[in-house]
């Protein structure tokens, strides 16, 4: 029977992916143990935040002139991590890169959780956190004089839009998969997934609508990949601070965001494919492709670093040159050289095929890239503030235990929500995997 082999393969896809979120007893304990541990981690950070609200921002290392430190660095870092999820799921979708299917769900979920994590930090940075809603622009009912020319207001719009569009994009791709789970489960799980599947029955009309809406959303979200991190970069570039006031910042930030996000995808997916037993779907070939993208992004960033150095050294004004030299040789030189080592040099090892196909190497490189990207964000923010125009107000910055703990807690917060989400949805897109199968059968 010609159709039987296809049917068997389609059925196997359903079975295999369905199995990724049905736990064995050991798996169940490991999963909930990890979730609990992460919950404990961010609870500790939460307690310190309460103490920080009670005592004020004096408990942080923030000072004059370094008024932005770990918290704003964390905001930029997590927003950057979010970008790669969209890059993998939307841009590669528009380019018909079929291999993206296997990691798209993990990347999209990462996007949502990373934006959730990033959005906390502007609030954490507020002395009076309960007035966070002042960040949200609305007509001038309270005499706040919302300044629509301020990049901080652009940020509020950009991040909110990015979150909503990413959630819609993520949920839309899940609707057919929720229907698969609904039709294979019973009891309370079935009742939940019946609601989530929105009555999906797989008609040709539904598929046409799905395809069209998904394509439109992919195009829309692609525009956001470029715009959101450009706007985040303008938080800095719009200010006339040496080391920030540069036209290269927008593309430089976008490339950095995609690099850190790709690295985070590897950090999350490599262990997850073992834990979820999805090795047949998330193959070494797929991870190798992520490695190739990392090389491209790393080279773009290295080019940006070189250009920034040339602009700074050849600048007629002494301030930019001075700030650059401060970055390279001043108080924060370890940040600069760690960035160069982890973002520009370490990824070069991926030119070797053997390294790209070694999961241990990929995992270690992905961790190092994220360390490098964190250092780069911190260096960019802190060194320019610490070494401004006027030598009489130059300063330095040492993060306090509050900042270390709260930023560390944000990793727990990120992993907590990521594990919760990815553990309760099909971790690999079922419908899209089947679509690839249908297309390969059609030739």
């Amino acid at each position, binding site marked *: 029977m010609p*159709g039987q082999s*296809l049917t068997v393969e389609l059925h196997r896809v359903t079975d295999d992916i369905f199995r990724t979120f049905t736990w064995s007893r050991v798996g169940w304990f490991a999963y909930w143990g990890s979730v609990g541990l992460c919950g404990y981690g961010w609870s500790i950070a939460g307690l310190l935040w309460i103490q920080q609200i009670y005592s004020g921002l004096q408990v942080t290392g923030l000072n004059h002139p370094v008024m932005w430190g770990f918290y704003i660095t964390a905001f930029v870092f997590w927003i950057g991590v979010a970008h790669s999820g969209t890059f993998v799921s939307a841009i590669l979708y528009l380019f018909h890169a079929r291999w993206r299917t296997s990691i798209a769900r993990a990347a999209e979920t990462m996007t949502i959780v990373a934006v959730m994590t990033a959005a906390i930090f502007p609030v954490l940075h507020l002395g009076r956190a309960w007035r966070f809603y002042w960040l949200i622009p609305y007509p001038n009912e309270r005499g706040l004089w919302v300044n629509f020319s301020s990049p901080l*207001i652009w940020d509020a719009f950009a991040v*909110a839009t990015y979150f909503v*569009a990413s959630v819609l994009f993520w949920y839309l791709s899940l609707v057919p998969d929720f229907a698969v789970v609904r039709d*294979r489960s019973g009891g309370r799980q079935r009742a939940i997934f019946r609601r989530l599947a929105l009555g999906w029955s*797989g008609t040709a009309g539904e598929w046409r*609508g799905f395809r069209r809406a998904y394509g439109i959303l992919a195009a829309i979200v692609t525009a956001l990949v470029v*715009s959101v991190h450009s706007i985040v970069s303008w938080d800095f570039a719009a200010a006339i601070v040496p080391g920030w006031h540069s036209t290269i910042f927008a593309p430089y930030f976008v490339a950095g965001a995609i690099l850190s996000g790709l690295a985070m995808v590897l950090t999350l997916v490599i262990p997850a494919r073992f834990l979820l037993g999805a090795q047949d779907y998330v193959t070494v070939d797929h991870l190798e492709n992520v490695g190739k993208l990392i090389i491209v992004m790393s080279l773009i960033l290295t080019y940006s670093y070189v250009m920034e150095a040339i602009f700074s050294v050849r600048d007629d004004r002494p301030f930019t040159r001075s700030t650059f030299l401060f970055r390279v040789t001043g108080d924060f030189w370890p940040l600069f050289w760690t960035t160069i080592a982890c973002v520009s040099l370490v990824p070069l090892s991926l030119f070797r095929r053997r390294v790209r196909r070694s999961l241990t190497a990929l995992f270690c490189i992905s961790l190092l890239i994220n360390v490098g990207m964190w250092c780069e964000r911190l260096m960019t923010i802190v060194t320019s503030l610490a070494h401004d125009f006027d030598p009489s107000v130059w300063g330095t910055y040492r993060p306090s235990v509050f900042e270390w703990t709260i930023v560390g807690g944000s990793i727990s917060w990120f992993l907590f929500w990521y594990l919760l989400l990815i553990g309760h949805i099909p971790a690999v897109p079922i419908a899209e995997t089947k679509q690839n199968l249908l297309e390969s059968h059609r030739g």
Partner: protein
Amino acid sequence: MADPARGRSAGVLAVFDDRRRLLNAIHTARMAHIEPVTAFAPAYDEELVEAAAGPSRTIGAMALGGAIAGCIAGFALTIWTTAQWPTLIVGGKPLLSIPPFVLIAFETTILMASLGAVAAFLRRAAVSRRDSPAGHEPAFTDAHFGLLMRCDGARIPEAIELVREAGALQWRVV
């Protein structure tokens, strides 16, 4: 379940394990003037969608409508809010400054376009379900394909014969 003997308007739902047979069945049904209501598939299949789904311009139109509404809303919010404090001095810069407002209008455009696209998708899915209320089989989300045809009760045996000859695994009158 409709009773074919009573001659009411009814239909046949057939299950296939091969998409090629399903496409043939759709073609044969059209030749016999039996209208396929819809086809079912476990994944997006371009040929199947072309054969069994009507045209769809609503989603694009609603996304565009959302984009236009969002753009207008973005400019309206910024300009009207700014217009409330005409005497405020903002460092020598023009109070009503269009370039920074473009950024906010861009974001609201994107936001409303995405909401419009998803709203249109939900509407289309609801319409599709309304047109084939008795059609769903769990096998269609797993690995099988399906065809729902509408015909007079008197033509039910003909429709069954049609899907049987086309190679359907099973069928039922709905």
